[in-house]
């Protein structure tokens, strides 16, 4: 609220509706009302272009996503040869009765879950490490982190694909240097779990910088005296973290985690590019699965239904994020 407290435009809503009777100056009342109305309209006028664009490119498609999922919409409907017909819950029945869909759901949740877990744990450890190293090491790590943060996803994926190449990849060479291990010619993408682990590594590598830099900023706000006091009272390093540091940065951790869940459930380009535009069945995640249904076999309705189910799956996470934002007063 602090932002608006002293603005001249602040109009207490209740007084606004009270009649000007008994004011003694009835002639001034209409003018003042008009002035107030003008002021009340200003923020909405400022917001209008933004809301208009968002409704067009986000609101409308969101509703369309819902309606599409209850229709029969394939190539003829796309080209306008045939009108879309309503089919009720047929699409959902077909999807939910398909065992492939369920294996994709499980794979996506496991994949995203591990991505988030590794991102948050490693991110937290690196943020704590940054507090303990010499300034020059901190600068080096920061530069590396910002560079990997800024890397376009397409570039990062290309580089990882090259590093994990079966014939000339540097990773196979490094692993083969370990005595008794021979990884030369090893194909990382021959099996789904192994390939997805490589993709996971790339996702985590790209996601850690944001977490580290944000958590580092949060850690600087933890009062040194509190940690000192806990240490004097006999708390070990872990105790200090568990009972002093963590509670203070917890709001940040919750926000980072929810954001990571949403981002990692939405991983698309990584899988799509690593598999050369045609992810094999054991590489499919909800995003690529929905995309394949829509643009691979031109079944836009089924694709929409899958996408909508993904959004519903994420709704709970979004709610947690919003609650946190409301709690720390960011929305005021």
């Amino acid at each position, binding site marked *: *609220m602090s*932002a*608006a407290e*002293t*603005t*001249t435009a602040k*109009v207490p809503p209740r007084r606004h509706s009270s009649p000007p009777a008994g004011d003694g100056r009835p002639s001034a009342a209409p003018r003042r009302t008009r002035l107030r109305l003008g002021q009340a309209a200003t923020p909405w006028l*400022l*917001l209008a*272009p*933004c*809301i208009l*664009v*968002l409704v067009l*490119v986000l609101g409308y498609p*969101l509703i369309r*996503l819902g309606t599409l999922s209850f229709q029969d919409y394939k190539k003829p409907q796309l080209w306008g040869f045939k009108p879309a017909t309503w089919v009720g819950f047929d699409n959902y029945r077909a999807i939910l009765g398909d065992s492939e869909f369920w294996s994709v759901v499980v794979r996506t949740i496991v994949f995203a879950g591990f991505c988030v877990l590794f991102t948050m744990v490693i991110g937290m450890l690196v943020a704590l*490490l940054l507090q*303990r*190293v*010499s300034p020059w*090491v901190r600068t080096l790590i920061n*530069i*590396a982190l*910002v*560079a*990997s943060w*800024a*890397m*376009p*996803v*397409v*570039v990062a994926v*290309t*580089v990882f694909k*090259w590093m994990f190449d079966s014939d*000339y990849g540097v990773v196979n*060479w490094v692993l083969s240097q370990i005595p008794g291990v021979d990884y030369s010619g090893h194909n990382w993408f021959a099996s789904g779990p192994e390939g997805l682990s490589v993709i996971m590594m790339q996702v985590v590598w790209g996601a*850690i*910088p944001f977490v580290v*830099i*944000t958590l580092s900023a949060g850690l600087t706000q933890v009062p040194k005296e509190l940690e000192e006091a806990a240490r004097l009272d006999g708390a070990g390093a872990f105790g200090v973290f568990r009972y002093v540091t963590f509670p*203070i*940065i917890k709001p*940040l951790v919750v926000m980072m985690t929810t954001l990571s869940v949403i981002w990692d459930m*939405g991983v698309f*380009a990584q899988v799509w590019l690593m598999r050369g535009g045609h992810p094999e069945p054991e590489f499919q995640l909800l995003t690529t699965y*929905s*995309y394949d249904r*829509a*643009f691979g076999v031109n079944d*836009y309705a089924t694709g*929409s239904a899958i996408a*909508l189910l*993904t*959004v519903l799956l*994420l709704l709970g996470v979004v709610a947690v994020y*919003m609650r946190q934002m409301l709690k*720390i007063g960011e*929305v005021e």
Partner: protein
Amino acid sequence: MSAMTSSRAHTGSAPAVAAARRRRNAKLGWNALGLLVFALAAFPVYWMLNTAFKPAKDAIDPTPHFFPYPVSLENFRRALNISDFWGPVERSLIVSASTVVIGAAIGLLAALAISRFAFRGRKVVIVGILTVQMVPLVAMIIPVFLLLNQIHQIDKLSGLVLTYLTFILPFTVWTLRGFLVNIPKELEEAAMVDGCSRTGAFLRVVFPLLAPGLVATSIYGFIQAWNEFLYALLVMSQEHETATVWLGTFTTQHGTEYAPMMAGSTMMGIPVVILFLLVQRKMAAGLTAGAVKG
């Protein structure tokens, strides 16, 4: 006597010396660990540059060469010759710049509304913008494609700009709001007391203070638009592809040649990294300002 005091002094300082040594050793250990983290984080970038700058035949030597010696620009020449590079770059620049300019203009007005005015429905608008920011864009791709198809914007740069606004706009509004909240309103009020109109106060007092934040937000938005892949892939045809798609579908007649590909990656990635290094500090401050409050 003197021997006694000296020996006492000695025993007294021994633990201190030991503690100092322990601290130094601990610091050494942390630094070593820190350097390991640095090596792991930087390795992909290093490997990209290393591959890009060495002769192509060294890239496919079974024993990797860890330094690009002799330095060669052959891969860059090849990457530029394999398919048109500057066309996609030009399209990406046009799309990213238009998105950012439109996004900053519209977003600034909206940010002003939610940070400088009190009105009914303000909280709803803020929650709405935050929620919109959370919608995974991948999930929206089918209806957005159908919408663009309906309004004849498929394979048009303007269509791509329109879709990019969906993620640039909420982000811009939210970040600019963060910068605006940190500019004291008293400054504006003082200007208005001195006879400025509300608009005048904004233009003369708030805007100069907001400018660095606006630039940082715009550059960040520019990077986001420049890096986008999925919508660019779907909306644009192959002959009008953008830079990310150019790299993503980089193939030569001999299959995938990694050395020129790394040269292409370098050309795409390094400008972005430099831009990002310029604004990162400012953005991190804006994103986390006031986040640790309760």
